[in-house]
């Protein structure tokens, strides 16, 4: 049994204990930038999920072919290629969302989370676990984005997925940049509190610097 | 008006005693003479229990370079040598002498009407032998201040008559009552240091002292009496030098680094007494005052007299006393008991009522900046106190913590009632090499 890889564990890992946004504090820009609504957050999440999974798989497949001295540039090329694919697909098939967050879709290429997973996981593992890891990370990211989007859209617009509940916007500020930062900060603080209160855990570590270093050497 | 940066102006409260002439305190029945009454190494006792001693007899031998002998202040019998309470708050080795009421001088005491003809080294030796230390409070052995290293050229002597601590008036009374002795003392000091320029700095709230001193100074070329702005801590050496000479002693440096020696007016009188009359330092003038005593007085007191005797002489406590302070209310030390001897550095006993000393819980700093304005050393006590509160001692050190001489100006002005001096002491303690 021991030899069997626990795919569920790898998958779960990305969603909870190593949630890229709330736990690893990586790729924070999109977490604030595109989460003024659930829909945007969801689609961004899907885009990252796609890029992460595909890049993980690609790297895993050709990992023996990549020359170790130029592995970072190679990874970046691979990510950039998949991002371009996503970019073009969204431009073609999800036009109204794309107009709002096109720039951020293109910037997925610079998300530290993706590169760091390639370096720390996909480059060492087989295709299947790498894919599952990508899915897990992507899902963790997606869930975080949807959650932030949920709070912001509900408070900021009185709506969910564009469906309006209230006649007016209750707390307009929440859909502005400043509100995005507030919601991020308060949610992170809230999760830390829950974690400390009920699970006795530590606050989310400032590990992102590590990950950056890790990814770029 | 001569001034320095920072400082505060607390209520002076000098009216209790500033008009009251110095009177001799009753001869104490028993004195406790600590062997450590000065900055530096404590003395070694040279008497044994049961031994008879005379007034002015040396009972403690200096032990090292920065040290100073102590003498018996009464005649009587040594009844105990051991650890006794000391105004610094810690018990300290002391010699206890029971008086025999005869008050006889020891034989070695001899007058020297021709003292001016003595050589500098001889005079310096007299000062040392007499156990004279700075009487302003710090009690640094005077003979060391009078022996600057060769490379430091001393150009000026400043006599400190600022007496900036609230309540205290002993220096004030000395200047009014013994102005000539003060001058003679200053001249001896100037002679020893081979200096031609002397200043006497007096805070502007003692016009009578300024006037008296100026009168005498008019006939003394080279000595100038200057009025200083009434401000605490005007009497701190570095601030005094800044105010009078506009010179700043560098951080970590001494007055001699800018060619100055500062002495207290009381010390000058002691120097004169020692050189002229051969008297060792066995008595000093102190102010017993505050709303907690019945009859505030300026007293001439034998070293070693317990506070309780003096308080009784001043009519005892009144108004529910809350604090008995050895020294002034700013830098003095609160005592747990009145069974404490007067030592050479005790400039006064201030008794505050319980109401005056009510303690309030302190709050977080709210950055009003008053302490920054008040700090005479140009520090930022607010930042220092927060750094120390958070245990970041090293950063406190980088912010010049060691320039702080704990004058308490910051704590005085702090609306959040933060115990600044306590923080500073704590920080220095943690940074001192012993504690690592």
């Amino acid at each position: 049994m021991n030899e069997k890889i626990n795919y569920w564990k790898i998958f779960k890992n990305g969603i909870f204990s190593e949630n890229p946004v709330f736990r690893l504090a990586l790729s924070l820009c999109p977490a604030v930038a595109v989460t003024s609504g659930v829909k945007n957050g969801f689609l961004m999440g899907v885009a990252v999920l796609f890029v992460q999974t595909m890049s993980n798989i690609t790297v895993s497949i050709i990992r023996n072919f990549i020359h170790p001295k130029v592995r970072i540039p190679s990874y970046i090329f691979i990510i950039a290629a998949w991002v371009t694919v996503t970019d073009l697909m969204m431009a073609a098939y999800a036009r109204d969302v794309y107009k709002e967050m096109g720039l951020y879709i293109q910037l997925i290429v610079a998300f530290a989370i993706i590169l760091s997973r390639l370096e720390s996981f996909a480059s060492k593992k087989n295709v299947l676990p790498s894919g599952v890891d990508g899915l897990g990370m992507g899902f963790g990211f997606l869930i975080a984005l949807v959650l932030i989007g949920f709070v912001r859209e509900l408070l900021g617009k009185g709506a969910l997925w564009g469906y309006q509940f209230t006649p007016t916007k209750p707390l307009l500020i929440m859909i502005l940049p400043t509100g995005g930062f507030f919601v991020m900060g308060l949610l992170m603080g809230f999760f830390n509190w829950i974690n400390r209160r009920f699970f006795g855990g530590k606050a989310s570590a400032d590990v992102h610097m590590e990950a950056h270093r890790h990814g770029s050497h | 008006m001569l001034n320095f940066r920072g400082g505060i102006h607390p209520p002076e409260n000098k009216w209790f005693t500033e008009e009251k002439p110095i009177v001799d305190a009753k001869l104490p029945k028993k004195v406790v003479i600590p062997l450590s009454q000065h900055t530096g190494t404590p003395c070694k006792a040279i008497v044994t229990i049961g031994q008879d001693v005379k007034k002015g007899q040396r009972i403690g031998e200096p032990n090292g370079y920065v040290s100073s002998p102590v003498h018996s202040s009464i005649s009587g019998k040594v009844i105990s040598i051991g650890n006794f309470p000391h105004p610094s708050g810690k018990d300290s080795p002391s010699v206890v002498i029971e008086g025999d009421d005869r008050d006889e001088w020891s034989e070695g005491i001899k007058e020297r009407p021709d003292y001016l003809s003595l050589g500098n080294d001889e005079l310096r030796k007299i000062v040392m032998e007499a156990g004279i230390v700075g009487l302003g409070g710090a009690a640094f052995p005077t003979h060391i201040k009078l022996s600057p290293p060769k490379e430091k050229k001393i150009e000026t002597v400043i006599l400190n008559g600022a007496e900036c601590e609230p309540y205290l008036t002993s220096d004030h009374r000395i200047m009014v009552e013994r102005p000539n002795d003060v001058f003679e003392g200053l001249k001896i000091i100037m002679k020893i240091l081979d200096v031609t320029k002397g200043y006497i700095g007096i805070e502007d709230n003692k016009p009578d002292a300024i006037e008296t001193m100026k009168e005498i100074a008019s006939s003394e070329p080279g000595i100038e009496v200057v009025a200083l702005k009434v401000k605490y801590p005007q009497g701190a050496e570095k601030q005094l030098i800044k105010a009078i000479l506009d010179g700043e002693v560098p951080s970590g440096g001494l007055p001699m680094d800018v060619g100055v020696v500062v002495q207290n007016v009381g010390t000058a009188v002691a120097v004169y007494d020692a050189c002229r009359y051969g008297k060792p330092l066995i008595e000093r003038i102190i102010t017993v005052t505050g709303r907690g005593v019945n009859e505030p007085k300026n007293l001439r007191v034998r070293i070693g007299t317990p506070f309780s005797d003096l308080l009784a002489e001043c009519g005892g406590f009144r108004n529910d006393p809350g604090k008995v302070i050895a020294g002034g209310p700013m830098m003095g030390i609160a005592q747990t008991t009145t069974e404490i001897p007067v030592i050479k550095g005790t400039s006064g006993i201030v008794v505050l009522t319980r109401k005056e000393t009510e303690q309030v819980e302190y709050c977080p700093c709210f950055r009003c900046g008053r302490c920054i304005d008040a700090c005479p050393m140009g520090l930022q006590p607010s930042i220092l106190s927060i750094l120390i509160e958070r245990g970041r001692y090293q950063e406190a050190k980088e912010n010049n913590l060691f320039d702080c001489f704990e004058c308490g100006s910051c704590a005085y002005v702090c609306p959040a009632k933060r115990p600044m001096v306590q923080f500073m002491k704590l920080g220095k303690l943690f940074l001192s090499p012993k504690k690592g």
Partner: protein
Amino acid sequence: METKAEKREKQLLVSIGPHIGSEESIPRIMWAVSISLLPAFIISVYYFGLRAIAVVGVSVLSCVIFETITQKMLKKKVTISDGSAFLTGLLLGLNLPSSIPLYQPVIGSLVGIVITKHLFGGLGYNIFNPALIGRTFMLITWPRPMTTWYKPVAGITTMDAITTATPLGILKEDGIGKLIETFGDKMNLYINLFLGNRAGSLGETSVIVLLIGAAFLFYRGYITWHIPFSFVGTVMALTWIFGGKGGLFAGDPILHLLSGGLILGAFFMATDYVTAPAIRKAQIVFGIGVGALTVLIRLKGGYPEGVMFGILLMNCFSPLLDRAFKAIPFGTIKRK
């Protein structure tokens, strides 16, 4: 047996010096500032009616309540008696228009007290002025109610008053001509602005009563000239130079001095100890900075009034300024 005297001696207090302290304390300062705002509050009731009491009352009450709740939740000592929450509420209330729906100041107080103050560690640690953050939050969240002003009508009136723009609003939208026309002539304009007979936030309108309060604070030494004077001076200088339509030096500094929230901001909010620099030299730079930003926003920005944003923006720089203008330790200046 201990004698009475001995017993008493045992109770002697021991602490590290100094053994005396100044009379000043945080509550004393906070309440004094609150009192200095009292004239402004009274005049706001005169001009805007009972509604002023309701708005200020709700702000003050909710600030105090949020302070209590937060401190309880954080298991800290409840310090509402120090007056700082009261003052925050008072300043917030006086910075609001009279017609604001009453649930809105509650949210403003929540943001001011809980997020701006206590999340950052409570009194002394907040980076931004809580009342101003509360107000700005409200302005962004409810732009319409926060920019609906009523003409002051002396006496006890309510909502049947007429909406109008603030003098700065008119100045920005229609120019100075229209503004003078609204008030009759230029002298009349100045007088009305000075007395406070104009639309605006509750407490900002009457320059004279604000100056009375400020004079009290100066007298007590609770504020110094550094921030308010450099702030007001900069605003006047820059509006004089750049404020006019017909080239340089054609502006009307007096108009800019008297209108908007300049006096309220300069004397009561920019001077906030916690959020302004503590070093005097830094305070002057701070004041100049607030003034410059205020004028920039008034003349070029999207909002008619820039005092609030000016102060908040410079609040960001306070730690930097304190750092840059560190006090000079004694002994660094050589003897002359």
